[in-house]
């Protein structure tokens, strides 16, 4: 039994080392070194490929599932919007007021700044938004969120350059029963147009978008 325990401890340690030893600082992704076979390549060089991100990227379209509709020939309207964002996990943490401080910049994602693209001009809380690409972030408070569209594209989410803010909107935020483990952002059809639903932990908000 003692041997079995030792074996287990060793096994667990090995698991832990494998799981946590090779995380890159920025993305939390594991990295794997791969080596080209020398005979077929001039240099016996080693390169590092990154593993899958800890907070993986995802994409949302309006019309909902536009790429699938397009593939199956079922599109009835042109694409309106596309969002690319990364999805952190709650992972047992208190999110709002804890991990994310009220009144501070929240990147609405992880890794790269979240990017929203409008393929046509749209209207949000009465403001006309020019078609094009923006990064999107939030300043959360307990009862409302300020959602901001900013022109500083292709940047990392941790450092927001607020001097490039273009539009901002205030929306209410609600507590919900369901706990969203992963940050979830999705476009949804509404009676007036559509909305970008943003949910994480037990908070949920919606940005109404008319087009």
């Amino acid at each position, binding site marked *: *039994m003692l*041997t*079995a325990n030792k*074996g*287990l401890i060793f*096994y*667990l340690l090995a*698991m832990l080392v494998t799981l946590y030893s090779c995380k890159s600082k*920025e993305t939390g992704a594991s990295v*794997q*070194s*791969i*080596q*080209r*076979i020398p005979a*077929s*390549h001039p240099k016996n060089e080693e*390169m590092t*490929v*990154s*593993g*899958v*991100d800890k907070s*993986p*990227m*995802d*994409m949302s*379209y309006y019309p909902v599932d*536009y*790429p*699938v509709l*397009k*593939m*199956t*020939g079922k599109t009835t309207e042109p*694409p309106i919007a*596309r969002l*690319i964002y990364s*999805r952190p*996990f*709650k*992972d047992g943490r208190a999110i709002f007021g804890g991990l994310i401080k009220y009144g501070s910049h929240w990147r609405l994602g992880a*890794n*790269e*700044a979240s990017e929203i693209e409008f393929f046509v001009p749209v209207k949000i809380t009465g403001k006309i938004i020019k078609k094009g690409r923006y990064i999107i972030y939030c300043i959360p408070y307990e009862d409302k969120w300020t959602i901001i569209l900013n022109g500083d594209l*292709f*940047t*990392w989410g*941790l*450092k927001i350059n607020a001097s490039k803010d273009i539009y901002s909107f205030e929306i209410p935020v609600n507590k919900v029963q369901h*706990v*969203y*483990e*992963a940050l*979830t952002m999705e476009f949804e059809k509404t009676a007036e147009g559509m909305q970008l639903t943003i949910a994480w932990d037990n908070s949920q908000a919606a940005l109404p978008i008319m087009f």
Partner: protein
Amino acid sequence: MKRSLLLITLMLVSVSAMFCQSKLTIMDKSPMDVCYYPCNFPILKIQDKVTEPLAARIVYSRPQKNGRMVFGELVEYGEIWRLGANEATEIELFKDATVEGSKLKKGRYTMYAVPFEEKWTIIFNKETDIWGAFHYDQTKDVLRVEITPEKLEEPAEAFTMMFEKITGGANLVIAWDDVVANIVFNF
């Protein structure tokens, strides 16, 4: 010995259960990722280390090998391959480029491949915002180039696309399982 094997199996099951438990919301099995040239452009940007403007970005999804034989089986030789998973892989060029000696104008394209054991045809197509290669339309091709894949010593578990700096441009490295291929870009 039997007993410790059983214990180890139980441990494995509980560890995997731990991981599954944290995924109440549906996450993609083949998560999306992005690569840039210059490499890691967004990080360089917040560190004020950008020395040249953004030339290219690829948004793609990363299927895992997961114990499967990839080339010749999962990815069939001679068939169109979506170079990713889920949404079609998208490359955006922020300036005109030369790809394996052929001109490709700045803009957004979907990328596909037709792999064979000895060569791959890489396809740039102008139909963007579509799913996979299931509705691939050859009439919308913009460019096709041929490259020669090589073998890797250590198989790559996740399908990987990344730019690597070379003199005068970049290699787009495509690696999965025991195969790696390079596409030469000059910007």
